[in-house]
């Protein structure tokens, strides 16, 4: 903390602004991705083993959600059940689409014995386009593990944030 006392107020404000710029840029990139892909959550981490051996817990998925992309059997979609926050990554196994484009579909995890009807809301038998967060287009293995560790061990998350904050505030450009 000797360093911190030696800096005058101006330098401190400068450091804080630098930090704010980094955070803003990161946010802008994230928002930009949301716009380009059309999905509210263009990057998701696989949370369960229900799609093994294709995807394991901790894998990272890249999604798109273009409005005109039709939903077809065999596609891997990420959806949210009404009222719940957790995104689920499963495969579409049945679709029934009307002429006007209204579609209802059923999903199932590759590694599950039964389809997802048990996961849907009480009385809900089908999913609709509005439940879809996006379609899985690409994936990277293991990379999402960091998010899972931070969720399961919050102390790790705070420690990481503290270290990052201290580094950014104390680093000085000479």
């Amino acid at each position, binding site marked *: 903390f000797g360093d911190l006392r030696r800096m005058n107020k101006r330098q401190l404000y400068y450091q804080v602004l630098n930090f704010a710029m980094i955070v803003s840029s990161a946010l802008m990139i994230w928002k930009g991705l949301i716009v380009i892909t059309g999905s509210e959550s263009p990057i998701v981490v696989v949370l369960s083993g229900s799609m093994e*051996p*294709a995807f394991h817990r901790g894998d990272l998925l890249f999604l798109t959600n273009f409005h005109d992309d039709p939903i*077809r*059997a*065999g596609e891997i979609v990420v959806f949210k059940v009404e009222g719940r926050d957790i995104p689920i990554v499963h*495969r579409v196994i049945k679709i029934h689409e*009307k002429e006007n484009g209204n579609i209802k579909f059923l999903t199932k995890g590759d590694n599950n014995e039964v389809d997802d009807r048990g996961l849907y809301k009480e009385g809900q038998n089908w999913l609709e386009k509005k439940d879809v967060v996006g379609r899985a287009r*690409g994936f*990277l293995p293991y990379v999402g593990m960091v998010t899972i560790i931070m969720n399961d061990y919050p102390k790790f998350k705070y420690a990481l944030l503290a270290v990052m904050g201290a580094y950014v505030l104390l680093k000085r450009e000479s």
Partner: protein
Amino acid sequence: LRKNVEDFTGPRERSDLGFVTFDITADILNGKNDFCSIFDWNVKQLFLYLSAEYSTKNNALNQVVLWDKIMLRGENPRLFLKDMKSKYFFFDDGNGLKGNRNVTLTLSWNVVPNAGILPLVTGSGHVSVPFPDTYETTKSY
């Protein structure tokens, strides 16, 4: 890719239930259309599925996955399956299977890479299955 099928519809209170048995032969053709060439260094597995596609009065487009299989890298890439029953119940949303002459079965697969893009590929060759005009009440499955 060749498929041979036999089918009939069973009665249910509200929706038609179809029963299909099929054979799948994945031929090794001229090196461009076989599964061997799909398994390159970045392919972890193939998720194969047989889907039935048809339209009915109720719905302009219906697709139902009847059967699927995971083929890992290193497994025998040739398929010789005979007299397979569908893995999943072939329910229609309504009564559109009865007398439907135009139900098409296609084999497709999802290429799962070690890392990268996840493409969905449809196999060449599909089979049209006409469903009979009457319900069968006595066949057991």
